């Protein structure tokens, strides 16, 4: 018997609204207002009319444009916003959630199915929320013989490490959480953490199938980290810097994928292996070892690991964009802000108010974010496609690909980069 979604009726909808208003008020007072206070506590408040705003004063000014807009701008440029929302966790989590939904719908279309359909009014768009609620409401079962502190810590460490990876990605000019001069080195260091967390969680579960899955994950990640790192050295040779923002800036005329296609391919394949995506999903091979190193995770612990792995997916796709596809570089499509806004402020009704904080953001930032997001989504699409096409490969084939083929290709890529550098085509002081 199939379940038919109930028909939309205005009366029921209005009734549900009135029901929900109660909960909206309750949630706003209990969660929303403390959250706003928390944010106001962290941001550097601007000095307006010679008086330093306290959080309480700022709270009253949110609703007035003349004071609200500078407040908003100072929020936008605060470290808290960068870490929690835009180039950091919130943006990444939004793209990751979009990825999960797109993956399910895309795979469903490929497999002649419908995919998520009933949750939410449009094409099951709220399915992820339903899944999240389900995972939260489920009991977390810890195996009796597990090493409990490490078993608890592993998923949280996994998400934290993935989030640290996200923080290194420059999204738009100047919009990066941690703009390190050794950014790429930090990326390598963070990637090196994942096998350790995986084997910790697998071992601490004290169960056979997670253990085998953890060992597999360890083999896979360690043997694919080497071609991954080697494939990126070509870019470093050509740019002469490890700073990811500067790597993007050096691609203003051309993208590195045009000169280093072998490196891009090696990086893409290694990326699939690092992400444990099909065809390299051996650590979670269902028919062989149940769910691999995730077997003993239940409830929101499992949800956290999934969140971490999708954040990792976003971060790797973004790294691919930054290194090979020119990051935020692209034709300017965002129209410039009107001159009167910059000089006069905004028009509110019959009067024009001069607001000191305007414009809130820059044209370059919007354009860069747009191009970066588009490119990242395209790379994520290519990461998702193999799942519908390939079966899983075997561990010996995997190791053979990693050690024999990809490392050799990565070295060829380095030689190409060196050749381009010494021929004076690219690099510092090159022709292009």
């Amino acid at each position, binding site marked *: 018997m199939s379940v038919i979604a109930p028909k939309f009726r205005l009366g029921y909808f209005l009734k549900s609204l009135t029901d929900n208003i109660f909960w909206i008020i309750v949630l706003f007072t209990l969660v929303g207002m403390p959250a706003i206070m928390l944010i106001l506590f962290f941001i550097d408040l601007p000095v307006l009319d010679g008086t330093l705003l306290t959080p309480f004063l700022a709270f009253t000014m949110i609703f007035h444009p003349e004071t609200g807009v500078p407040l908003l701008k100072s929020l936008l440029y605060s470290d808290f916003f960068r870490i929690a929302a835009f180039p950091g966790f919130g943006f990444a989590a939004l793209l990751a959630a979009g990825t999960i939904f797109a993956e399910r719908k895309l795979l469903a279309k490929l497999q002649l*199915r419908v995919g998520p359909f009933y949750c939410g009014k449009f094409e099951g768009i709220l399915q992820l929320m339903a899944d999240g609620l389900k995972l939260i409401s489920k009991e977390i079962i810890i195996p009796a013989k597990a090493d409990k502190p490490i078993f608890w810590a592993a998923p949280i460490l996994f998400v934290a490490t993935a989030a640290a990876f996200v923080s290194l990605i420059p999204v738009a000019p100047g919009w990066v959480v941690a703009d390190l001069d050794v950014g790429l080195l930090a990326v390598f260091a963070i990637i090196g953490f994942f096998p350790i967390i995986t084997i910790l969680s697998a071992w601490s579960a004290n169960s056979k199938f997670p253990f085998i899955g953890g060992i597999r994950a360890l083999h896979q990640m360690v043997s694919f980290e080497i071609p991954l790192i080697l494939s990126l050295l070509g870019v470093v040779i050509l740019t002469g810097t490890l700073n990811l923002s500067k790597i993007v800036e050096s691609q203003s005329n051309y993208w590195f994928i045009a000169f280093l296609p072998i490196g891009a391919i090696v990086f893409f394949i290694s990326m699939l292996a690092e992400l444990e995506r*099909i065809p390299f999903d051996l650590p979670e*091979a269902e028919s062989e070892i149940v769910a691999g190193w995730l077997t003993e995770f239940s409830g929101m612990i499992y949800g956290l690991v999934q969140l971490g792995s999708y954040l990792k997916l976003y971060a790797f796709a973004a790294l691919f964009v930054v290194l090979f596809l020119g990051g935020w570089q692209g034709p300017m499509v965002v129209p410039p802000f009107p001159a009167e806004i910059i000089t006069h402020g905004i028009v509110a009704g019959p009067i024009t108010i001069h607001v000191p904080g305007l414009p809130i953001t820059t044209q370059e930032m919007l354009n860069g974010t747009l191009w970066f997001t588009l490119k990242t989504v395209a790379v994520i699409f290519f990461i998702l496609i193999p799942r519908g096409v390939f079966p899983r490969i075997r561990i010996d084939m995997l190791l053979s690909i990693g050690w024999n083929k990809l490392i050799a290709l990565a070295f060829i890529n380095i030689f190409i980069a060196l050749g381009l550098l010494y021929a004076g085509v690219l690099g510092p002081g090159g022709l292009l």
Partner: protein
Amino acid sequence: MTARLPPGLQLEKVDDRIMTLNVGPQHPGSGHMRLIIKVDGDYIVSCDPDPGYVHRGEEKMAEYRNYITNIPHLERPVIHDSCNILYPYCLGVEELLGLEVSERAKYVRVIASELNRFTYTLYWLAIYGIFLGHSTMFMWPAGDRELAIDLLEKLTGARVTHSYFVPGGVRNDLPANFEDVCLRQINYLEKRLKAYADIFYDNPILIARTEKTGVLSREDAIRLGTTGTVLRASGVDYDVRTKEPYDVYDELDVHTNVLKNGDSYDRSKTPWLDMLESCNIIRQALEKMPKSGSVRVKLKPNPKGGNDEVYKRVESGRGSLGAYIVSRSKPEPYRVKLSVGSFRNLICMPYLLKGEKLGNMPAVYWSLNYWPVEADR
């Protein structure tokens, strides 16, 4: 201290290199059975299949019911191949009771049996796909299977447990317009089967994974008593439909697909070739079938056989499927014994898995065309 624990539950020595894995019965890659697998690193040292989790005593139940009421429960071991599992029983009972089946009923039986081979093999293929981590190959056959199921539903009234074959023919005649719909669906299914080759059988990763794994040589295949697709993949030209034709298979042009290598890839490809052959058989049967006539012999209530015994076999989706029926002049059979292909193919699993990598376990296991419920009966 010396209490004997069942195999697989025995405590292991911690310092041992060998680790015992219980693959099943609660494991996504097992089915209703258990494989006790001992691994040394990534290599399987020994494999001990432990069937019997779904034993339902179908054969014993058959001794307490008469020849007609046996039909609905005898098909339960393989509900998605239920025509084929009833086929040898019906052939045997017809011989015991001395019934003559009409020509049209024989053709209808062939059509239903081949359609059922479709539903079974597509299901099997879907599970083979997901065992290898190919989720598209799980969804496509599971979806296309609906077409064959719809046809069978039109024909028999039930989606899976058809209870369609009865001693003396089939339960009811073809519905109106069945021939046209059947031809159309079969043409479409044949097109879809060719699409499977593009995404699955010609997939380089699949070929690299399954070729030269679990190789069963021609001699071993005969010696271990395998049957059906496993036997044909090892290069033995044996098909009950051509070697011992029953009903009207001798009037149809049945081609036996024989592959040489006997590895997992060939074992997975033989059922697919068989499905393509089924398309041809159904087309021929639809063409040659008498356009009218009765399809069922009217039986007396509680028919009795003489003091006799009979053994009949047919080619099911999993190989030769035999029914041995002993009658002692009573309305109930004295003994019914089903000789099923699943159990005979299971026997070679320990030989094939020994020395293989753990990653090959699902590829070899499911390529044996094994249905756990049928093996337990």
